[in-house]
C-alpha cells in the first residue's frame, strides 16, 4: 500500500514535526499522547539512541508498535527499558539536570508559553475543572520544553486562566526572578507552524510555517499578537517513510485520529 503524503491528519503532522526536533542521543522526558508517539517515531527514524523517560518511573523505554499505553504509568511503558525506578526518583532526574528536553501536550497556552491544564474560569468556582498538572509543572519548571498542540484561537490566549506549567511567566526575566533558574520554553509545535520565544521579551514568535499555511492564517488563529521571525522558514511535508512508521505505531489511531 502506498501512502499519500498529501493525506495526513493534523495530529500526524504534529507528531512528525515534533519528532524532527528531537536529536539522537538526547534524554527526553515525554508525556503521554503526541509526545510519546513523536519520541517513539524519532527513535524509529533518525534517533535510535534517543532515551525516553516516563514519569511513571522508566528510563529508556521502546514502545511496541500497536501497543501504545493509556498513560505513562503502565507496564507497556517499560518495554526494553534500561531501568524502572520510583516516580519520585525519575522526576528528580529533571531537578538534578539529566534531562535535555521535556516534551508535553497542551490544552491552553499563552504568549509567554505558560500552560494551563488545571481549570477554566474562576479559581474558586471554575466553570471547567481540568485534570491538573501531573508532572507537567515539574517538567516545565526544570528543563527545556517542547510543547505539541493543536492550533486554535481558544487555546492560544494572551494570558492563561491558570498557570499550571510555567513558561516565561510574565515575560522578560520574571521566570528567573520567581526562582526557576533552569529550563524554559524552547519550541511550540502546532499543526500550523513552529514557534520559539524572543530572547528578551520572552514572547512567542513564529519561526516556521508548515506547507500550505501563511503567517496571516496563523495570526488569525491566535488570540494574541504573534512576533514573526524575519527569516520565516517553511517545513517539508511529512515523508512517506515518516507516515508509514507513524501509522505502524498507532494503527488504531488512538492519538492520531
Amino acid at each position: 500500500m502506498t501512502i499519500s503524503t498529501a493525506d495526513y491528519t493534523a495530529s500526524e503532522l504534529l507528531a512528525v514535526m515534533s519528532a524532527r526536533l528531537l536529536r539522537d542521543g538526547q534524554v527526553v522526558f515525554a508525556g503521554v499522547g503526541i509526545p510519546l508517539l513523536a519520541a517513539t517515531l524519532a527513535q524509529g527514524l533518525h534517533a535510535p539512541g534517543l532515551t525516553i523517560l516516563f514519569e511513571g518511573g522508566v528510563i529508556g523505554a521502546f514502545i511496541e508498535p500497536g501497543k501504545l499505553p493509556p498513560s505513562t504509568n503502565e507496564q507497556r511503558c517499560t518495554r526494553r527499558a534500561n531501568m524502572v525506578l520510583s516516580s519520585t526518583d525519575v522526576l528528580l532526574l529533571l531537578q538534578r539536570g539529566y534531562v535535555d528536553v521535556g516534551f508535553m501536550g497542551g490544552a491552553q497556552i499563552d504568549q509567554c508559553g505558560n500552560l494551563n491544564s488545571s481549570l477554566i474560569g474562576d479559581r474558586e468556582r471554575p466553570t471547567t475543572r481540568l485534570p491538573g498538572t501531573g508532572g507537567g509543572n515539574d517538567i516545565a519548571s526544570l528543563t527545556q520544553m517542547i510543547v505539541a498542540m493543536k492550533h486554535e484561537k481558544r487555546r492560544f490566549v494572551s494570558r492563561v486562566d491558570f498557570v499550571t506549567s510555567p513558561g516565561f511567566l510574565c515575560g522578560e526575566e520574571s521566570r528567573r526572578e520567581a526562582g526557576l533558574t533552569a529550563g524554559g520554553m524552547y519550541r511550540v509545535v502546532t499543526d500550523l507552524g513552529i514557534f520559539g520565544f524572543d530572547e528578551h521579551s520572552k514572547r512567542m514568535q513564529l519561526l516556521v510555517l508548515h506547507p500550505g499555511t501563511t503567517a496571516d492564517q496563523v495570526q488569525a488563529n491566535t488570540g494574541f499578537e504573534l512576533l514573526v521571525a524575519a527569516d520565516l522558514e517553511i517545513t517539508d511535508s511529512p515523508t512517506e517513510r515518516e507516515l508509514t512508521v507513524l501509522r505502524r505505531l498507532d494503527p488504531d489511531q488512538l492519538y492520531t485520529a
Partner: protein
Amino acid sequence: MTLSYAEIRSRTEERDRSLREKVMSLDEAAALVPDGASVGIGGSTLSRTPMAMIWALIRAGRKDLFCARSITSCEGELLFASGTSRHILTSWFSQGIVWGVSRIMRAYTESGRGRFEEWSHMAVGLRFRAGAMGVPFLPMRSMMGSDVIAQLPEARLIDCPFTGEKLVLVPALNPEVALIHVQRCDAYGNAQIDGLPFMDIDLAMAANRVILTTERIVSNDQIRRAPDQTKIPFMAVDAVVETPFGSAPHECYGLYEPLFRHLDGYAAQIRRDPEEGVRAYLDRYFYGPKSWTEYLDGLGLEELLDARRRGTSIHDD
C-alpha cells in the same frame, strides 16, 4: 497537617511491629480504616491500584476519608460518588488521557461537593518521602511562580540558608493508613513488587498503618530466597489480604494489563449520564457482588483471561 516528631515516633512505637502473621479478610482489613482517616493510595493511574481494598471500604460505607495518591483514575471517581471521600490530594485526576476529562471529578469539584487538591507529581512524591524519612519537609525547585503553588498555603517559599536561592518546602505527608497492592508477600507482610514501584515504598514507610493486598501469599522461605526483591519490610505492615486480580479492572505488572473493554464501557456509561452512570456502576460492581470472587465473576472470565494474556506477554521477547 504536619505532625510533631514526638507524635510520629510515639505512633510508631505504639504499633505491634513484631514478626507475626497478619493474614485477614478484606472486611477485617476494612475495619482498620476509621471514618475520616487520612489514606494514602498506592500505585498510579491504572497500575497496581489497590482496587479490592477500595472496593471493601466503599462497601463498608466508610465516610470522609482524606485520600492522597500520585495520580488518580476512576477509583477517585468511585470514592467521590460513593461518599467515601470528599477530599482527594493528587497531581492528576481523570480516568486516563484516552478517555478525556473526568465528568465525575468535574461534577463534584465544580459543585463544591468534592475537593481536588492539586500538587505537582514530584511534590506529592517528596511529601511521602519526607514522611518516610521522619523529617517535617523537603526542599524542591519546581512549582515556583505557578498558580499551582498559589493555591497551596501549606507549601512555603524560602531563601536557601546555604546559597540564598529560592526554594519550595513541601510538608511531610504521614497518612494514617496506606493501601498498597503487590504481586506477592508472605504472611508477615514482607512484600515484593515487580515493575514500576511508583511511590509505594515511601508511602509504606510514611504511613502509620499499612494494609497490603497481594496477588498471592508466598512462604517466608520464598521471600528469603530473593531478599533483594523485597521492597516493603514486614515491620511496616499491619494487614495482609490475598486478593487475586486485586487491581482489576486496572493492571498489575507482569500478571495482567488493564481490562480495556470494561474501562471503555465504564467511560461510555459515565459519558451518557455521569451521576446516574456511576451510581449504576457502583450498584452493579461494588454493592451487588457478595464477595471479591463474585466481583471478578462480574468482570467476566473472557476479559480477565485476555488481560492476563496481555499482562504476561511482557515476559516474552
